[in-house]
């Protein structure tokens, strides 16, 4: 086991977060937005996992525990998001978030 480089992981999670943000900013389909948010959250999960793996003390395991919890939370959020998607679709017949912009100014 010759080991891995910490910095590369942060680089990967930075890239994933950036891609997620990019998706949130540019996509208009609610489902794509959900996916983009998942990508961003996965960057955080990845952070927890590798920081746990590289931690020196015994407390590192709580990083993995945090990752587990965040995964669960993200899944819950997707479920809520889908509920809103369905209600929105039933209401407007569209899940394009840019079209739902009556509240403004």
């Amino acid at each position, binding site marked *: 086991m010759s080991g891995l480089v*910490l910095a590369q992981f*942060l680089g990967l*999670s930075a890239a994933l*977060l950036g891609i*997620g943000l990019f998706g*949130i900013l540019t996509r208009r389909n*609610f489902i794509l*937005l*959900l996916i983009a*948010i998942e990508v*961003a*959250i996965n*960057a*955080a*999960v990845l*952070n*927890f996992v590798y*920081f*746990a793996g*590289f*931690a*020196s*003390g015994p*407390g*590192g395991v*709580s*990083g993995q525990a*945090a990752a587990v*919890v*965040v995964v669960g*939370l993200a899944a*819950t*959020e997707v479920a*809520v*998001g889908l*509920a*809103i998607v369905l*209600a*929105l679709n039933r*209401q*407007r017949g569209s899940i394009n*978030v840019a079209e*739902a*912009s*009556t*509240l*403004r*100014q």
Partner: protein
Amino acid sequence: MDAVSWTWFLPEAFLLGAALVVFLLDAVGVRKIEAVGAVSVGAVLLALLAVISDLGFDPLGFLSTLPASVIDSGGGSTSLYAFSSLGLVFQGIFLLSALLVALASLSRPSDEAGASVFYGLLLMATLGMMLVAIAADLIFLLIAIEVTGIATYLMVGYTRKDARGLEAAMKFYIIGALSTALSFFGASLLFGAYGSTNFLVLSQGLGGVTESTLALVGYAFLIVGLAFKVTLVPFHAWAVDVYDGAPTDVSAFLAGGTKKMGVFAFFLVFIGPLSILTARAVSCSGSVCVAPYDFRPSVQLTLGVLAILTMTVGNLLALLQKEMKRMLAYSSVSQAGYMMIGIAIGTAPALAGATLQVFAHVFMKAGAFLVVAGVSALGVGPLIAQYRGLGQKRPYLGVAFALLLLSLAGIPLTLGFVSKFVLFSAAVQASTVPGQSFFFWLAVAGLLNSAVSVFYYARVLKVMYMEPPDPAVPLDGPAGDPTAGLGFGRTAAIILAVVAIVGLGIYPQPVLSAIQSAATHFVATGA
């Protein structure tokens, strides 16, 4: 942990139990608002009683009698929660906001669809806020925020046939989920820097990679995630649309309740006994001693800039609003800026000022939104101009609304004045310390902004009292009945808010002393 007994969790237990009862009632088909509402109001009242008894029921300066062992009990390096006197004060504040909304919602149509879900979610959201108040761990804090978050996304959209409500829920959800992702990313970086997410560990700067830049970036992400809840500029844009589109009682809860949760989260992360802004000792492992990077000035400067930005932008935009709810929403944004002044300064008096501002804002903003909900139930439209003659037609409602707005504007003899007075004077006082002259400008900015804010509140007063009523709107109830069209619950909630605003505005000392003592404990312990 030893000092914490299970009785400390009684308030949370009441709320959770009531939520389960409400959901079960819904499942068996009992959905009348009277039934679920009564259960919810009862649970909130019980929880409030429990919190008050935790504080040690002694209305005159009660917090000073709180045993020291209770304050900070459980704040070990692995514990997830800790009780502080200020946290208990905030629990009380959260419960008060829930009480106002739960009371007012009793007056909604008796067979309204979704009443039980609304009340259940309200209880769950309150439960999340209660848990935020006792967090001693970053992940615990963020999930507790999420408990409230998920419940409130659904509360905004619970009128599922209402296009505006759903659009608001969609916006709230997307920006909320984005903020969640960013906060957890920040938390993960902090975990990377310190090897733990416990506040005590974070505050001591021990463990892990100990890379200060990593931690600083983590804190930046965390600020963004929390700023979403507190509606700081430029993370505020969602709030206006959501407050506007959500059912007005829910807006009252969001502006009056959940926003305060964000404020307390800022307290915990940035000011509290276990926060980065407490003076940190040089940490030694073996013979190597490291002085941790001092975040304090940079973070304070950043939060101060955010405070000024929030106050100013919120006020300027509130000036031009034509709709009542949007005006209140922007004023709510600017009020968050005042609270941030206290957070940026971080001394005990400033903290007391911010807490008082939070306390006052629960009554004034939730009260104002509840009045708006009541007025629109009477058939008045959303525009400010449509409130003309309200003061003459419905004198009691008009006076109540006027008092709430005057309090928001910070006019003396109201609680809003007291809180701003304490906050700004704390800022001036803090600025006398050499090298902290920046704080003086925070006070000046707050002052100028409250001067500006008077205009848009006064405009509403002018419309209400100085313009003839619109004959098309039947504001008159049956003669001699001031509550006509409002219902018992909403009337009670509005009276509660107004009495609190005026009563405590005239005689604030008990609450002030209590909050000051709690804030002093909060800042001093762990130093």
